[in-house]
């Protein structure tokens, strides 16, 4: 699968990238992350009106209306997931405070180094357990509700697969990463994916096997990066960092070091405005790609 990750598209570069790929035929687009703005024809003008919007958010609204039983179950699931996420964040707060406390200790000896490694390992363990837990909850929900056997959802899935089958590429825009990831799963986009996939911001995050939320500039100050759930899993070992400079305190090297070590061996790829990176499914990216290194500094991938 050929995947191109872009930086935020306030000043669009997707048109240039699409031209460089010499694509022949219509291009599927997913703008479900924009939610109620999904029908806006913002992408069409950059794709030479070759775009075919899969309207995943609109389809989800249709399911809400026409399959109230499924919608009610979805709401219950979301309630449970929110509670689970809350508890995870509570535990994460203590676990990360422990990491930072050990990290702040001035002595730079093997004892402290080992303690720091153990503290980071505890956070990684917590992350893994949480991802497992919420994935299980979602899986149980899907098994119990059998979306493939529900006429409204089955109808939309077939339509989405049909549209994807006729296109030469897929473009996934940003927006609300939770909504985007949910609609991608609900309408079972993964089996019908067409290469190449071009994605940015939340779109890039939704392609990974593990969605990591991050925001250091909230009214409460920096927040803890948190595991949200599984994406499509097209990309493994990648943590995309859209708007990295704007959203993260990149100058705080000790904290950024914890970020990088926590998700290692995944590559934390900075997706700033103008970035265009071709990534393979194992997270390998070309020399020059800007990534967060384990020392907490932003660095470039070197040629092997």
């Amino acid at each position, binding site marked *: 699968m050929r995947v191109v990750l872009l930086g*935020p598209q306030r000043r669009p570069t997707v048109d240039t990238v699409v031209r460089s790929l010499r694509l022949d035929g219509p291009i599927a687009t997913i703008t479900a992350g924009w939610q109620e703005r999904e029908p806006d024809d913002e992408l069409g003008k950059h794709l030479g009106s070759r775009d075919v919007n899969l309207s995943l958010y609109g389809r989800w609204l249709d399911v809400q209306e026409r399959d109230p039983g499924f919608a009610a179950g979805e709401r219950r699931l979301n309630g449970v997931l929110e509670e689970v996420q809350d508890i995870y964040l509570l535990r994460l707060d203590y676990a990360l405070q422990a990491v930072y406390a050990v990290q702040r200790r001035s002595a730079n000896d093997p004892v402290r180094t080992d303690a720091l490694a153990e503290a980071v390992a505890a956070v990684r363990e917590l992350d893994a357990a949480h991802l497992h837990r919420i994935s299980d909850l979602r899986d149980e929900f899907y098994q119990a509700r059998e979306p493939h056997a529900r006429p409204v959802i089955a109808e939309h899935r077939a339509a989405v697969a049909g549209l994807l089958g006729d296109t030469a590429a897929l473009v996934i825009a940003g927006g609300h990463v939770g909504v985007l990831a949910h609609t991608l799963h609900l309408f079972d986009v993964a089996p019908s994916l067409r290469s190449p996939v071009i994605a940015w*911001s939340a779109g890039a995050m939704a392609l990974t096997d593990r969605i990591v939320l*991050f925001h250091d500039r909230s009214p409460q100050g920096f927040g803890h990066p948190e595991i949200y759930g599984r994406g499509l899993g097209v990309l493994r070992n990648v943590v995309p960092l859209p708007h990295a400079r704007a959203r993260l305190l990149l100058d705080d090297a000790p904290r950024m070091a914890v970020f990088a070590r926590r998700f290692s061996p995944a590559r934390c790829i900075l997706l700033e405005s103008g970035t265009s990176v071709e990534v393979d499914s194992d997270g390998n990216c070309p020399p020059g790609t800007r990534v967060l290194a384990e020392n907490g500094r932003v660095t470039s991938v070197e040629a092997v």
Partner: protein
Amino acid sequence: MTTVTGPAVSRKLAINRLRERRPLESAMVDRFLARHDVPIVEGGRCTFVYRGEADQVCLVHRTFGLPERILLRQLRGTDLWYVIVELPEGSRFEYQLEVAHGEQRERINDPLNSRLAHSPLGSSSVCYARGYEVPEWTLPDPEARPGTLVDFVVPSRALRRDCQAMVYLPARFRRTARYPMLIAHDGGDYLRYAAAKTVLDNLIHRLDVAETIVAFVSPGERLAEYANSAAHARYLTAELVPWLEAEFPLAGTPSARCLMGASFGAVAALSAAYRYPAVYGSLLLQSGSFVFTDIGNDHGGGPVFEPVVRFVNRYRAAPRRVADRVFVSCGVYEPLIIRNRSMVPTFEAAGMAVRYVEARDGHSWENWRDRLREGLSWIFPGPQKFFYE
């Protein structure tokens, strides 16, 4: 955005430069007042002035730590009165002037200062010290989609009256969604004096705060209903909450329920949660009137505080977990600052997560307005972390 800045502190103050003028004529005072915004903020020093014939002029205020009445001096040979007060950076200072003619004393807002702060007790002048900014999210933003306010009457057997409530529904309200719920005591005052609707519209628009349904409730006999009243707690918990959850698409879990209040309203919020400890996940308490005694009965609050003192003393003696999270804010210029600071370890000892915020401000609605972003975004954080455009 309203920003107050002053020149470097080392410069001679404007009033002192005027004092040095010889001869000091009335026209010079005219020019002086025309040139400066009043109060004159220069670094950490603020010069308050009054112009007019009087026998005495005082600066009166409720700022804890300063003398209650600060005399202004008359500038020799003129009808200009002045006093210089040090106000720490970021302070908001509400005041009035007391002008005496013989035995007659009149309290007035500063006629040379157009900035006013409003409250149920009336208005007063306000001085923005260096570094204070009126938060831009408290001002109407044309980009922010407005929510709607709907009037309701909820009949209450507990309170034996029909209770008015205004319910805020966020923009793009959908029946199919599930919302957290906030109940605001003194709701009418939050709307009138703390710009609560504008604040909610803006903070929700900016994704700082989750889309929330807010019930603004107003008291009948405030000092009775809000002073640890069992009837009020029963009204909230056994009548209002079930009514709201039947009427609106609310999440209906403790973590999605919050009680908010300022001053006596904060006591009402805490006491309701104390009586119904499994119902409310969060409390947002602003400048709570948590008056207590450590020894003896002299609390200085008068008879209306008696039930409050009994409640707070009981709570401090045996702190109980009444919610998961408590946001506490207080102005450092209020006499209640010591009480509120004392409550923080008490809440923590009870096993609640506490976020405590102080501000250089007094017991005022604008102080409570200015803290809403920190409080609401902590209690019901917005979806900012989900958006990557």
